[in-house]
């Protein structure tokens, strides 16, 4: 294994498109996807879902795909730092804890900084902007 994997794009299962902004912004870096066999991750997935993900990964050029524990795979490849898209999936933050990680923001849908107790107040503040493209001064 002679390739330099010190810095890679870690492709997780919420960013499976060749048009993903983080992927496109780092087109020069190796691309790694791991089917993480942990029971809290892909280890509990039904077969059809693993196959669906494989369809997605297979479409993206140059992705090296592995099966195993994410941290162990990256360590074995000699990875030191990772670029990936931010995610609320806590397992991934845990698995990448030993690496230097650049968490790129995921593409925003709406501008909103209010409370998240109920959907309706959120919707009232983002509705105009989402439907017209105009900024909503109430946000």
């Amino acid at each position, binding site marked *: 294994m002679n390739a330099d994997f010190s810095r890679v794009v870690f492709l997780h*299962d*919420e*960013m*499976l*498109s*060749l*048009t*993903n902004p983080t992927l496109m912004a780092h087109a020069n870096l190796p691309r790694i996807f791991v*089917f993480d066999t942990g029971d809290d991750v892909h280890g*509990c*997935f*039904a*077969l*059809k*879902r*693993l*196959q*669906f*993900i*494989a*369809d*997605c*990964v*297979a*479409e993206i050029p140059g992705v*090296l*795909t*592995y*099966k*195993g*524990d994410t941290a*162990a*795979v990256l360590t*074995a490849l000699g990875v030191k730092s990772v670029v990936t*898209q931010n995610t*609320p*999936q*806590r397992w991934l933050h845990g698995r990448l804890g030993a690496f230097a990680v650049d968490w790129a923001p995921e*593409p*925003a*849908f*709406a501008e*909103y900084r209010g409370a*998240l107790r*109920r*959907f309706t107040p*959120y*919707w009232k503040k*983002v*509705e105009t902007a*989402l*439907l*017209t493209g105009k900024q909503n001064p109430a946000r």
Partner: protein
Amino acid sequence: MEQLHLPDHRDARLAAIAHYFPDAAGPDASIPGGRIAALAALDRVDPVAYARSRNHLHGAVTRLSPYLRHGCLALNEVREWALAKSGPSGAYRLVFELAWRDFWRRVWFERGDEILRDIEPAKVPLSDAPFAADITTGNTGLACIDDSIHALLNDGYVHNHARMWFAAYVVHFRKIAWREGADWYVQHLLDGDVASNHLSWQWVASTFSNKPYFFNRENVQKYTDGKPCMRCTASRDGSCPFDASYESLDARLFSRGART
């Protein structure tokens, strides 16, 4: 670790994944993944027809959720496409539903794994009966419920209304803890997403909403044209647990017992 080779040909790829994951349960994926399939699905979406018929099980739903879940499509990409095709009025309902997805996700970002527990006290008595095999195999004897379980197990895609019926059946009619149902359900959904799934179950249970969601037979008939009821034994022999008014169901489901 093991490096996987994903063949270009889909049939070979499905077989390869089955080989790499011999313990993974269930049939092959009937719905293809990837951005090419996602764009084809997007091209079939009719935002106006969606708004008119989305609650009906045979309505013009988008089936985009597996692609949104895995990033094959971005929420804004779908929003912009819908607005360009149907304008703000025609695209309203679709954008509204996309916003629900964004809202759930924001809650997940904000609360992290707290969303795996009750966010608020339940507004009705809940319980924690064991999750039963008749549910996980789709043999409850209730056609409207079993249909959705079979769709889940076979295709990994279930109409949103049927998801709500199923969650309400598990939580309120069978008195199973919402987390049990949500954990099982998310494993089989192609669009399995902890935020959209678990928070929707909490919405049904009333631990992240002002009241519980439940349904009756009339609601099922309205949004299925009565087809499941016509071949349902429980419907024919009078044992359908959903065959009641909302008032009597409310009294039956929530008047006794308390969460332990």
